[in-house]
């Protein structure tokens, strides 16, 4: 998927707090992810995984603390993270190709049409490139959401439960794509539920509960099951 080597970019959270009214979604979260690392974020529903990812994507501002991207090239589009959220973040009233070209143009990608075409082939939607996204199934929507996040060849990838809606073939494709990006030097932070082909890529697992990091484990070949379900009992 990414033939070119990506600029080594890390991710650093320094004492991040996020408060919604009186409720703390995150409390004093400090986490450093080295360039090229693939980290799985685990935790129960409402534990703060999505908030942490949205802060990393700079969509949500932290109440306190600082987020930095060590090594990121300033003023370049691929210095910005690629983010796949629960929502598709694409327009239903535009076709798959129009959506990708739109986001490619906004991020100053060279030859937006060619890049969009390449990605549509990669995600298996080339035949449906002219179809409006609103006619797509849940799995196809997830594929176009992933393509949108990758359009500017980001060095840092943020995935919020990326396998949602994908069929087994889609999960295999995503695992392959992530492996390629990881090989090219991409930094990956993804929230996951349970073990899968995708979780097997993670070299480190961070467990978050009630807005705090309660475990940070180097997987080192150990089954991720124990890490991803840590504290669930």
């Amino acid at each position, binding site marked *: 998927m990414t033939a070119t080597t990506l600029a080594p970019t890390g991710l650093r959270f320094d004492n991040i707090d996020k408060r919604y009214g009186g409720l703390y979604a995150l409390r004093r979260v400090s986490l450093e992810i080295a360039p090229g690392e693939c980290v799985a974020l685990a935790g129960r529903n409402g534990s703060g995984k999505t908030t942490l990812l949205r802060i990393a994507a*700079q969509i949500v501002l932290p109440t306190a603390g600082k987020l930095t991207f060590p090594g990121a090239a300033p003023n370049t589009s691929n210095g910005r993270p690629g983010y796949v959220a629960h929502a598709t*973040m694409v327009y239903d009233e535009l076709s798959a190709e129009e959506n990708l070209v739109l986001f490619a143009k906004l991020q*100053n990608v060279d030859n937006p049409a060619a890049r969009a075409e390449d990605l549509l082939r990669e995600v298996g939607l080339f035949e449906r490139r002219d179809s409006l996204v609103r006619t797509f199934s849940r799995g196809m929507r997830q594929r176009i959401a992933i393509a949108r996040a990758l359009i500017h060849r980001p060095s840092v990838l943020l995935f919020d439960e990326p396998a949602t809606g994908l069929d087994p073939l889609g999960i295999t494709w995503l695992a392959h794509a992530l492996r390629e990006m990881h090989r090219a030097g991409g930094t990956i932070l993804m929230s996951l539920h349970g073990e899968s082909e995708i979780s097997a890529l993670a070299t480190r697992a961070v467990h978050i509960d009630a807005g705090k990091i309660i475990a940070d484990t180097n997987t080192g070949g150990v089954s991720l099951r124990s890490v991803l379900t840590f504290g669930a009992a």
Partner: protein
Amino acid sequence: MSLLSNTSVLLGKELRTEFRSRELLTTTCVFIIIVLVLFSFTVNPGTEQARQFAPGLLWLAILFAASLMFQSCFLREQVNDTLSSLRLAVTDPFAIFLAKLVANTLFLLLTELVMLPIFAVFYNIPVLPNFPVLVLVLFVGSLGIAVTGTAISAISSQARMRELLLPLLLLPLLTPVLVVSSIVTTGLLDRDPVVQWKGIAFLGVFDLIFLTALWLFGQYLLEE
């Protein structure tokens, strides 16, 4: 430079999605025609009374149409959280506002283009004698409504009682624009037309102030 290129790309998206679905334009045009036709029964066409009341009705109809437009302006971006993807993609968040502002102004002007002949016929008021100045008044007035409405739409879309909040915030802010636009239009459509340049200048200054405020503080309206 990136502000202008991002704005033009986003404006293209706004126009494409609207002209594909025609949801907003159809709704506002039908609505504005209904308002004008209904009110035409309350005054005798061509009379002095019609000349006095009709410009006010015209701007009231424009306000109602604009309110319909602004209700969905930022709300549409929440369906698939596309506002987040735009904020991730653009260098300057003002580009998002600028594209929506230009699109809203264009849609309002298109609606007015449909409305003017109907207005002229139903109220028997000739609009052609001072047409260029009338177009200028409609433009600066519509721009004022669009700047304010786009900003308020961004605020209200994140609120819980958004349907109530939009008119509640919008109407008091737009009072000066509506009052001055109505007075200037009344002068233009009078039997002895008067061009009130001071009123037009006031509308221009209003547009400039709100546009500057949107440029300076707009990014805070998009934050979660």
